[in-house]
């Protein structure tokens, strides 16, 4: 799931649940998730144990 799609779905859900104040936090989380995914290249999948 792309971060844009995730953020839209999350904000829509927060709105539906009556939590509009959650939106700026979700936007912050989206930026953190983008940085996390950027770091994904650091993980050497050939060395992961089962």
């Amino acid at each position, binding site marked *: 799931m792309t971060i844009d799609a995730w953020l839209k779905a999350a904000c829509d859900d927060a709105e539906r649940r009556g939590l509009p104040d959650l939106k700026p936090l979700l936007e912050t989380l989206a930026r953190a998730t983008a*940085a996390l995914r950027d770091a994904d290249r650091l993980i050497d999948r050939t060395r992961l144990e089962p």
Partner: protein
Amino acid sequence: MRATVLSIGQVSPLVKSGEVSPVDLVRTCLERIDARPELNAFITIMRDSAAAAALAAEQEIAAGRYRGPLHGIPVSVKDLVDVAGTPTTSGSAVPPRMPLADAPIVARLREAGAIIVGKTNLHEFAFGTTSEESAFGPVRHPRDGSRSAGGSSGGAAVALVEGMCFASVGTDTGGSIRIPSAACGTVGLKPTYGELPCDGIVALSTTLDHVGPIARSVADAALMFRVMKSGAQAAPRPSPVQRPYVFGIPEAYFCDRLHPGVRAALARTRESLARAGHQIRPVNVEHAERTAHVYLHIVLPEAAWYHAQLLAAHADRYSPGVRLRLEMGRYVLAEDYVRALHLRTLLRQAVNDALKGCDALLLPTMTIPAPTLGEATVDVDGVREPVRGTMLKLTQLFNMTGHPAIALPAGTTDDGWPVSVQLVGHLDGTDRLIDTAAAVEPYSTGGDGSVGGGTG
């Protein structure tokens, strides 16, 4: 000097000899609690049970049944930790749990003769760094009530510096023992992950949660830690051999933006250690700049999982800010949580690599002194930063990697606010870290009992 500002190391021989009675110690601590209710340090004060335990301790000691250096010593317990017969409120208006049994670490302290005077206030469910979101009022800094005492174990640190107890039990998921220790000028120890059991403690993030002591000296913290780990039978460790220690200072990320008073404290400590013959070397913790992003994707979903049922039943009873952070965790994708877990492994290896050839890493505990309550951002060396983010910046990595870490008082800023340095030791090397911290303590001002000055 008031007995309640002595360290345990200073007062316990007096208790053993009968020169000081546990009854008087408990009475004095209760008087100190009553003297400053505006600090909101305690949620539950255990007057009757503490008085009864003190009388029993006095009689046992008089009869020659001295249990050890915690016998008859008043301590406090963060109200996230179960103490049989008292509510565990977690600082929340959510209905508390009513434990029938002590958490194991509490049982061990009691077995060693420690007397619990009460349960201390905290940031609700330990999910914050300032201790201001609590159903029992914000914990206020003893030096200036408009400032935070740090968090989440804010009440624990305030209780100690105000002489309301001789040591406190805190918990630490991102820095919650070390941050209030830095803000208030106490010693705070986070052991290696898993070394002390978190059974009987309300979880925040089960793979990041730690429990440990807040104390007036390294020796007191060591005593508390060993009893919390092994009970009354904890074997005293011999004094470490005096030798030059090797400290690695990670400049990048950890020192790139600090309050000038914090930077000066680190420089003072570094120079004093070097003059005393210890070795200081620069080190690098690779990928440290990834810390906050990785941490967020672990703590949020783990906290959301733990609170899912309580949120379903009592969402309106949480503080708004804490509730929103918990709700945020429900939106973290499983894929990103797993990604964060793998990156945590990478960070653990990076800390191990930085520690190679060193006894410990030496860095500040917190980038700033105690912040003002109610502020969302704070000035850090000329730049506005989010309060929560900057308070966690130097501590949360070691919750993820599990390395033991200890906060030591390091004097004050020019205007008198406590500042702190942190030592980080090798995995499963908490005892070695304590020995190293004991060697550093004389060189980071504060030391035994003076709690870093500036405590009002």
